Every structure is written in structure tokens, then in C-alpha cells.
């Protein structure tokens, strides 16, 4: 008796849960038939939907940057919507949150791959997530344009679909090292990294270049992300008396290290990579941020006319200042859409296959973005990628550009 009641309850329970879940599932991956999804991008009669996904950490420690990438991409997509509407296509953005977690990234990648209408991905932020996820994109021939991944490994695996518009670690690291040694005259350098894939990669590239340029690495130390007390490492810096401290890691730890070091009277310059390129650095470190240099793959958006326009549009649309990576999200989307457009045209206006789109994206040459020009080489690296050097002269964001290194 009891068993059978359970059976009945279960059946009805499962059904009702199913109906509840229906709303969520349909919309997430829905086809054009879904009339339950109230979007203003509802396809007009006779147009075909092309979706572009973003994958970046929308939650967790890097959420600010992940959000910035997403918003940048969103802005570009909305600008281009009208143009594609004329070609007979409706563009839709599909933001995914990879949480900075490789498992989540791969699982999302499979969802993306399963969606026939998704032709491209703008992402990721963490290289550790991008590497396994891109293996999945490759299987489904979905073109990926990375706005932020600098790890060497990303494009070294010979995948047809993987492209990036930013410089590599083995380009960024040396750029920083050369500046530190030649411009700042650093001879003894203390290197700290946050023991993540990003921090290790950057710090190792920096060390290799710095040693080659003749500097001495007087200390090399790892920290634990999420902590707030880095006095132990700061004390080591005190002991070693370097002329420069390099930190491979993100702004959340970098800011605290800078602050605690300045409190201890360490007034030598600090240097970091693009992970420190965030307004959060200034919030955390406050006045202590002065005399900090960062190398970033992200340039000053206001340097060009199109860049200025981007900043204004971004502020108007989202009611906040763009972060360093916002413009890269914007340009990545631009590159992808350029590739998409040429693939459609090559196919006489018909919907091309995903293979063809990926090929067309790889073939993009001399794209003029809001910040960077993009031409991909055979690996998918941007030959026009530049590394920019900034200095925090005041406790304000963005910092002042002090240099620019091309390939």
C-alpha cells in the first residue's frame, strides 16, 4: 500500500517538476519555435538565428573581469545586429558562466556544442578553463576567439578553431622584463606568483626573460589565493632588498601585497601582468598603488577615435566604466562577426557550416578593432598583438600608459 502511494506521488511529482523545469530548459537552448521566451531579439519571420556564446567567470574571484568581457561582447553584438538582420540573420548572445572551473567550462562547452545555432564562442578568462574547453569546441568546429588567454599552450596545440587576439605569456613576460631592466634599471628582482596556471605561466616567462637580460632573481615565492595576510612573503622581500618586485597573479591578491609591502616601507616599484589590470587594484591598495607598473595585453581604449566611441557607448549602455578587458570582449566579437559575415557571403548568403565559419574566422586579416588590429597567423595568434605598459602615478584607474611593445 505504502509503496504504491509513493509510486503515485512520485509519478505526479516528477511530472510537475518536469513542467516547472520546462520553462528553463526550453529557453536556454531553445530553437526558434519557442514562443515562451520573451526576448526582444525574437526572430522576425524568415530570418535565421545565429547565436554566439560567451564563456567567462561571471561568479567567483574574477567576476569583474568576466563580466567586463561579456558586456564588451554584448555591446558589439548589438551594434552589428542591424547589419546581419539585412543579411537575413538574427544574432543572439548566449552568456555562460564558467566559474573559473575547468569542469564547469567543459560541461558548458558541451552544451554549447550541442546547440546547433551557436557558431562561435568569445572566451575564456582563465587559461586552465580555456584549454580543456577548447578541446570540446574543436570537436564541434565552433570557432573560439579568446579575448584574454595568454597561456602559451592555448594556441600551441594546433587546434583549428582556437584564436586569440591578445599577446602570449612568452611575449608579455619578456616585455615586462625588458622594461623593468632597461627602463627601470632593476638588477635584483623578487618574483611572487599566486600558484595558479595564469600566475605560474606569467612569472616563469618573466623570470626566463629577466635572467637572459642579466637581472638576478633574488627570490621566488608562491602565495595562496584568497588569503589576506601576506606579511610572511613581504618579510622575505624586506630581507632580500630587491630593486623591483614582480607579481604574477590577480589584482585581489596583488593589491593586498602592494599595500602590505608599502606599510613595511618597501618603496621599490612593483610590476604585474594583465591580471592586475583592474579598478579593483586601486580600490584595494589605495595610495599604495603608486609606483606600480603593469604590463597588459589590454591597451588604452581612449587612444583611438573608435576606442573613445566605445568607451562612451559602454558607459551609456551599462552605466559603468569599462574594465581593461571590456574592449577585448568587444573586439573579439568584432573579429568573430567579421569572419562570420565573410563566411555567409562566401556561401551566397546561405547559412554556412560551422567548419566554414571557423575557417573564415582564422582567415581574418587586418581587422581594425576599437583597440587592436587583428590578423591571425596559422596558429591563431594575433600578429598585431601588442603589450602595453602602464604606470600607476596616482591612485586612480586607469593608469597612465608608459610604453607599447609590438611583435
Amino acid at each position, binding site marked *: 500500500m505504502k509503496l504504491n502511494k509513493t509510486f503515485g506521488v512520485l509519478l505526479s511529482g516528477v511530472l510537475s517538476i518536469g513542467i516547472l523545469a520546462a520553462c528553463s530548459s526550453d529557453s536556454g537552448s531553445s530553437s526558434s519555435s519557442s514562443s515562451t521566451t520573451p526576448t526582444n531579439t525574437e526572430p522576425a519571420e524568415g530570418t535565421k538565428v545565429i547565436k554566439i556564446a560567451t564563456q567567462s567567470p561571471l561568479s567567483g574571484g574574477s567576476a*569583474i573581469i568576466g563580466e567586463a568581457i561579456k558586456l564588451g561582447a554584448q555591446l558589439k553584438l548589438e551594434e552589428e545586429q542591424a547589419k546581419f538582420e539585412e543579411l537575413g540573420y538574427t544574432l543572439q548572445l548566449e552568456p555562460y558562466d564558467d566559474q573559473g572551473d575547468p569542469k564547469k567550462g567543459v560541461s558548458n562547452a558541451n552544451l554549447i556544442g550541442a546547440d546547433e545555432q551557436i557558431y562561435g564562442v568569445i572566451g575564456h578568462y582563465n587559461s586552465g578553463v580555456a584549454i580543456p574547453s577548447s578541446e570540446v569546441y574543436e570537436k564541434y568546429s565552433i570557432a573560439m576567439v579568446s579575448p584574454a588567454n595568454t597561456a602559451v599552450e592555448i594556441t600551441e596545440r594546433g587546434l583549428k578553431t582556437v584564436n586569440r587576439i591578445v599577446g602570449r605569456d612568452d611575449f608579455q613576460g619578456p616585455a615586462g622584463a625588458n622594461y623593468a631592466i632597461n627602463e627601470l634599471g632593476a638588477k635584483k628582482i623578487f618574483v611572487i606568483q599566486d600558484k595558479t596556471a595564469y600566475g605560474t605561466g606569467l612569472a616563469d616567462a618573466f623570470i626566463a626573460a629577466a635572467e637572459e637580460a642579466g637581472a638576478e632573481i633574488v627570490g621566488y615565492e608562491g602565495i595562496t589565493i584568497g588569503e589576506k595576510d601576506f606579511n610572511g612573503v613581504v*618579510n622575505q622581500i624586506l630581507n632580500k632588498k630587491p630593486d623591483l618586485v614582480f607579481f604574477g597573479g590577480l589584482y585581489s591578491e596583488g593589491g593586498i601585497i602592494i599595500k602590505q609591502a608599502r*606599510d613595511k616601507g618597501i618603496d621599490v616599484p612593483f610590476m604585474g601582468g594583465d591580471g592586475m589590470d583592474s579598478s579593483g587594484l586601486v580600490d584595494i591598495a589605495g595610495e599604495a598603488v603608486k609606483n606600480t607598473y603593469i604590463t597588459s595585453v589590454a591597451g588604452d581604449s581612449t587612444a583611438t577615435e573608435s576606442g573613445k566611441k566605445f568607451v562612451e557607448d559602454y558607459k551609456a549602455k551599462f552605466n559603468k566604466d569599462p574594465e581593461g578587458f571590456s574592449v577585448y570582449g568587444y573586439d573579439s566579437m568584432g573579429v568573430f562577426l567579421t569572419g562570420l559575415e565573410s563566411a555567409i557571403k562566401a556561401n551566397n548568403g546561405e547559412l554556412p557550416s560551422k567548419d566554414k565559419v571557423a575557417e573564415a574566422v582564422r582567415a581574418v586579416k587586418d581587422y581594425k578593432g576599437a583597440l587592436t588590429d587583428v590578423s591571425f597567423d596559422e596558429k591563431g595568434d594575433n600578429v598585431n598583438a601588442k603589450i602595453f605598459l602602464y604606470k600607476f602615478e596616482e591612485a586612480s584607474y586607469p593608469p597612465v600608459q608608459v610604453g607599447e611593445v609590438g611583435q
Partner: protein
Amino acid sequence: MLQEVLQSLPQVLVDGLTLGAVYAVVALGYTMVYGILQLINFAHGEVFMSGAFIGTAFFILIMGMGWAAEIPQFILLIIVLVLTASITGLVGVGLERVAYRPLRNAPRLIPLITAIGISFILQDVVRFIAELFNGNYIVTGPSLFSEQITLKASSISSIFFDARIKTSFLIVLGVAIVLMVALDYFVNKTKWGTAMRAVALDRETASLMSINVNKVISITFFIGSALGGATGVLFAVQYGTIDPYIGFILGLKAFIAAVLGGIGNIRGAMLGGMLLGLMEMFASANLSLLTGGVFGAEYKDVFAFAILILVLIFKPEGLLGKPTAEKV
């Protein structure tokens, strides 16, 4: 090598004491609850974290009011400490009511699981409140007590370097010591303190002696959580930047400190906290130096957990605790 270790010693001691003071006061909360309920209140680290956020919110709020800028910083700190401690104290009492009291006779695994659940909930609630108001859950409070004092260690012996101290360090240490002494007095010299010790020894007999056990447990939670919250404020003052995830690992470390000192023993918790803070700071400053770069500062957590395991195996009653045998 030894010379380098010695040079930085004064500074390491100062930093270690700061961290140790934080561990010590948080450890008190664990030790009090464990003493009375034999329960590891996993959520205690989160109460500490909430305290840090509530305190920072108060600082921002009060300093945002024009006239408040006139208040001396020290008075401001005391106001915020009292306010925050009261709130987190009540949070602690509520926590016990909702999550632990109904489970007092359940198998021991169950309250431990609720405690983990509660700490997740607190983390996420604080996160989204912070994100709603701040746009980012990493929050940096106003900078207070940032004057620098130089401790002339080099005048004692030329081996040492001078140590730099932020005024906040003295404040943290001072307040922590006042809190600990006050608690020690409360537990050992007052009526409620006696009742608390009675309940800790034997709950049933205590209730026969007309002690209101539930009330005593509530008070214990209130005091423990108030201390935790107050430490959160001190932490925010000392380190400036906080996020919703600071409580978990710090809570664990404080628990290790409590075990090290002898769980259930208030003075033990203080000693354990200070010791752990010092050892950890020493390890992170010197580990890579002493091992020639093979093990770096990132192993300092391994170090802390190793201490816990060694203590539990070889001296489970801790440094100041008394051994007990299980009744068969």
C-alpha cells in the same frame, strides 16, 4: 642563512602576534561552544566573517556622515565593535536555536553537517548583499589607524632589522587582550560563568541544580559569536580588504589553535592562537630560505594541518588541557 632569519625576526614576531591575536579570539568561540556542547561549530568562522562585513559597513556608514568625521578614531572603533559584537552575538544565538538546539539528541554527525550548511548559507548571503551594494564582493574598508611606528630592534642588537608597526597592530593586540581577560574573568568569577562551567561538566546534573541549561547555552553562543564578530572588525581594520570567504580557512586555523591549546580550555585557546600565528608567520617568512627553495610559503597551511594532526595523535588533550577517559 641564519643571519637572514634573525634579521627579520622582530618583524616576523610583530606580524605573527597580529595574526595570532586574531586566531586566539576566534579560537575562544570554538572552545567555549565545544566545552559546553562537545560540538564543533563549523559556522563560527563565518560569524567572524560576517562581523568583518558588518563592521566595515558601519565604518563606511558612520564615516559617510559628515559630522562623524569629527569623532576620534578610537571612539569610533569602540562604537563599531560594540554594535557589531551585539549583532553577531544575536546571529550566534539564532544559529544555535535554528540549527543546533533541535539536534541536541541526534547522532553527532548531523549537527556537524548542519554547521557546514549554515556556513555555506552565511557565505552566500554575505556575498550577495555585498555584491548588491558594492558591485563586487571584495570589499575594502576605510583606512584607519594607519600611522607607522618603528620599533628600534636594531638598537637592541645589530643582528636585527627594525620592525615597522601600524598603529592598528597595537589596537588589534590591545583589544584582543582586553577581550580575553574580560572573558576569563567572566567565566571564572561571575555567576553565569560558574553556571557555564557547570553545564560544560555535566548538563543533566546542572539542570537538576536549577540552572537553565538552554539559557546558559544561548549565552555561550552569544559571547562566542560576539567575540568572533568583534575579531572580524579588528581583522577588517588591520588588513583592510575582506571577502566572504575569509572565514572558512581562518576558522579552521582558529580551530587548530583551540585544539593545540586544549579544546574547552579558554586560556589554552589564547595560547594556541598566539603560537599558531607565530609559527605560521615564521614558516611563511623562512620556509623557502631554510629548505633552499624546495618548500615555499605556500606550504604553510600544510604546516598548520600537520601541527593539528601531530597534536591530536600525541597529545590529544592539547597543551593546557586535561586528559579525559571515555566512560564505558
